[in-house]
């Protein structure tokens, strides 16, 4: 109970600070819409000569991209890695070493509150723009298994996104500047995470290998369940198992990095 109260408090503080930055989220959301415009033009033109790509038509593909956009605000890690790196560099981290607060738990609570706010606020620009893309939306029948698997995949995707960002942030124990690593990982994630194109459009062999990597489970997997690119409960269950395994692996990685980083860390000043 006290554990719940402690991190619940962090969550509440996080909610307040996320609401302070509501304009930032709003501006980000608007830029995302411009980006969505680009996606519509590019994929609309690509589909002009063919009816289907990888077994899906243009509406299904555009729906996929809209869902990915919403998911980015609901489960994606924005700049958590950067913030964590900064806290290590500035020595803000030192206070957590003296207090009975787990730094991972602290950051996770802040992440949860920030995504709650941004995940809700993204629907403002989306709803405002919906008259333009409403005709393109097409979802599969939302059977109970699809809904529950989709929700579980979203929660695990959020956990994976956060834990990986946490690991990248911890690199600041070893490197003065982590921005390069972060942008590099973002490139890999954009591509193999499925925000650039639906991963099932990759050549068959590459797609099969990619399914064992962590990246598809950051974004593609929940979007694929919700938009019908994953057709059967069996496929979804198998994906959820791999996804859960990657969350565990990432958490072990975070623990090891944290322990190793603290051994290297010197707290100066007072």
């Amino acid at each position, binding site marked *: 109970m006290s554990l719940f109260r402690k991190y619940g408090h962090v969550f509440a503080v996080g909610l307040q600070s996320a609401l302070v930055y509501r304009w930032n989220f709003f501006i980000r959301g608007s830029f995302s819409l411009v980006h969505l415009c680009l996606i519509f033009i590019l994929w*609309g033109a690509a589909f002009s000569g063919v009816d289907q790509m990888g077994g899906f038509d243009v509406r299904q593909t555009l729906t996929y991209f809209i869902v990915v956009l919403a998911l980015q605000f609901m489960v994606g890690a924005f700049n958590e890695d950067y913030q964590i790196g900064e806290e290590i560099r500035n020595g803000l981290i030192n206070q957590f070493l003296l207090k009975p607060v787990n730094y991972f738990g602290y950051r996770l609570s802040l992440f949860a509150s920030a995504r709650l706010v941004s995940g809700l606020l993204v629907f403002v620009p989306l709803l405002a723009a919906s008259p333009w893309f409403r005709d393109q939306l097409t979802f599969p029948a939302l059977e109970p298994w699809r809904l529950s698997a989709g929700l579980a995949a979203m929660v695990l995707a959020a956990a994976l996104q956060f834990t990986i960002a946490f690991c990248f942030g911890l690199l600041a124990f070893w490197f003065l500047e982590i921005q390069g690593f972060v942008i590099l990982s973002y490139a890999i994630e954009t591509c193999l995470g499925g925000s650039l194109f639906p991963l099932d459009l990759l050549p068959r062999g590459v797609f099969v290998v990619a399914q064992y990597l962590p990246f598809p489970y950051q974004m593609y997997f929940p979007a694929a369940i919700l938009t019908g690119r994953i057709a059967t409960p069996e496929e979804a269950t198998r994906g959820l198992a791999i996804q859960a395994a990657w969350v565990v692996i990432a958490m072990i990685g975070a623990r090891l990095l944290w322990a190793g980083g603290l051994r290297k860390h010197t707290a100066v000043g007072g």
Partner: protein
Amino acid sequence: MRFSMHYVRLWLASLRYSIVRTMMFRFDFLLWTVVEFAWMAVNLLLIQVIYDHTESVAGWGKYEMLLLVGTSMLMQRLLMGFFWTNLFEIGRNVRTGQFDFYLTQPGQPLFLVSTRKLDPDGLANSLVAIGVIVYALRHLGLPITVGGAALYAALVSIGLVVHYSLLLLLASLTFWIVKTEGIEGSYFTIAEFSRLPRSAFKSLVTTVVFVYALPAVVVSNVPASALLGRLDWLHVAWLAGLALAWLALAVTVFHRGLRRYTSASS
């Protein structure tokens, strides 16, 4: 004449300083070269995936598209190499008052602000972009001539002026709005459109906004069309006019902003 030699010497000094700096932070140079390369690879992969499933996008075949994306990448790399860090730092320098430094130097503030640092990683990757363009030309069976290369270089330079102006304009907003951290995001969002063929814009609204109001599409499409032998001189005139207009606007806004600058030190 003496006057312009002064600026050439200043620029060469910046170049020397940037190279020395890069030699000091070798790991950084390597890392950022890899980072930029990875992003270029991502864009190429997108083309590969799309053309695995379709023959043409808005009438452009795969290698024609590669030419367009290569052109867009080349311009972006040149912008990164020559100007990005400088313009990007205007915001921070104005906030902290370090901008004073530029005003006390013997030279045009705009020149000094724009040319102080060069990024060798951006310049290194522009070679990769040129490689992509040459690869696409080979596949299309198009000859590479001196005249064609010169025309292309001229058009890319004009395009670079437009990109520079756009970025300068955004960066100059910092004189009015102190917190301008989203600027690079807005630039990238606009610049992304330069990877689309002009013919992909079908609806009136997107054509007006992205082709006519914002210059991103024209800037990449005109040089790419020149390589493909589809150059329309009217478009060249349009591009040149665009560059002049945007440059004039950006320089005016920068100087207006400069007048508002009041330093920040204690």
